[in-house]
């Protein structure tokens, strides 16, 4: 437990010593939310949007800014610390604890991103259920923070990893926003026929956020899929980290080591 606390504390300390990251955390959400609001305001008022276009734009921008920032920080946390992590692990620090402390840092980043983005969003849009909306933003940050950690683990190069994350977040945001009402669907084993938009990571957080902002209600049918995404990504993150660091997936299981 002591290792876990010291590891987590030092990860957070490291994070707070990155002025550029902290600056992005403060400056990026207002800029992105406003730009999305302005850009989407020129959209025609379609019934499928569910709200006026500017609000829809700000909703989309808020989710995107929280998710993308958390993803970027997750990605660079893993890539920049790879060599240090390897040495500390050889010295005796469990890789499982190291990854867990990184993931705790991700929660802190997601919370911080959600606070900033929510304050900006709430300044411009009347939110029906502020607390619920805030927690949903945090969940969206967690989903992308985990995706960032996984991408950084599998593609440990800053440029290549960032490119993957940028394209993924952009595509995901466009598909999940509802701005482009796509009807394409695919047939999957177990799940059956499913809309393509339902498969992207931000779709369910987006639906939850819209419901919390506009109706003040919890869209319960979307909560479980979000938790499923987080659980699945956590599992993949541990497996990928174990494999890429030579620990092996079994080494990431509590009570087991190589």
């Amino acid at each position, binding site marked *: 437990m002591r290792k876990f606390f*010291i590891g987590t504390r030092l990860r957070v300390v*490291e994070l707070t010593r990155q002025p550029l990251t902290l600056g992005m955390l403060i400056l990026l959400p207002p800029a992105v939310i406003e730009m999305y609001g302005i850009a989407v305001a020129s959209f025609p008022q379609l019934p499928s949007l569910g709200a006026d276009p500017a609000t829809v734009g700000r909703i989309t921008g808020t989710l995107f800014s929280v998710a993308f920032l958390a993803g970027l920080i997750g990605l660079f946390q893993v890539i920049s610390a790879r060599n240090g992590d*390897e040495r500390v692990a050889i010295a005796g620090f469990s890789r499982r604890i190291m990854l867990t402390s990184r993931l705790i840092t991700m929660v802190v980043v997601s919370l911080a991103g959600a606070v900033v983005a929510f304050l900006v969003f709430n300044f411009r849009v009347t939110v029906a259920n502020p607390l619920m909306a805030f927690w949903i933003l945090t969940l969206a940050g967690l989903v992308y923070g985990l995706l960032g950690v996984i991408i950084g683990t599998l593609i440990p190069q800053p440029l290549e990893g960032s490119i993957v994350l940028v394209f993924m977040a952009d595509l995901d945001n466009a598909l999940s926003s509802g701005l482009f009402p796509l009807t394409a669907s695919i047939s999957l084993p177990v799940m059956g026929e499913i809309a393509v938009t339902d498969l992207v990571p931000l779709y369910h957080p987006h639906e939850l956020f819209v419901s919390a902002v506009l109706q003040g209600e919890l869209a319960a049918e979307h909560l479980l899929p979000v938790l499923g995404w987080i659980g699945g990504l956590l599992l993949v993150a541990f497996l990928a980290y174990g494999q890429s660091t030579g620990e092996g997936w079994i080494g990431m299981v509590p009570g087991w080591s190589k």
Partner: protein
Amino acid sequence: MSKSIKSQTGSEGKIVLQGKNLEKTYKPPVPFAGRRVTVLTGADITLYQGEIVGIVGENGSGKSTLMKILVGALQPDGGNVTDDVRIGWCPQETRLYDRLTVEETFELFAEAYDMSNEYMQKRREALAEKLDFKRFLDYRIDHLSGGNRQKVNLSVALLHEPEVLLLDEPYTGFDWETYLAFWNLTDTLVDKGTTIAIISHLISERERFDRILELKNGQLHEQEGPPGEPRSAAHREEEKNEEENGSTEN
């Protein structure tokens, strides 16, 4: 000076670390996206308690790969490593967290080594005193000069008083005083029974080592030569032999 320990123990000395038939080939991550580089082709290494061994070889000969395999940072394609001792590893690149201070770095590694806080502080103070970086303890790693960073890099490997110390180009960036302090420290450690293996592409003071192993064509060969003979003299001897062989062939 401790260099006589090996000659005292000879092949009878206690084996502290052994690598047998080590093989390693770097393959491109994607087929046809790069070249395969074979660096180790059945390398054998045995380290005895209390000896100081130099590992030499030209650039790209696989010295750092060998050391990574010995510490467990890299899996060999073939062969195995056996050890049951505390190992300290000082890699060529510092492999520390840039945004942590020197004190925080020691705290993190002490935790990894399962050291108590009091013991860590005692060791940290002693190392900082010996290698002269006490005034930089509250500096961030990325705010240190190359030489001071290397001192911390080395000290992290020494923190838990390892029984085997594997050092990869440990004195890069050291000034003369620190270089001498480094050798003074290694003498003290070897006197206590610590085994030290030092990788260098250029070993200029052969008399400081009990043995010199040369990594060539993926395998280690012990360099022959009278103990204590300066490396430069051994070089001259080799060059003389080569010249003689060359003139015979002609």
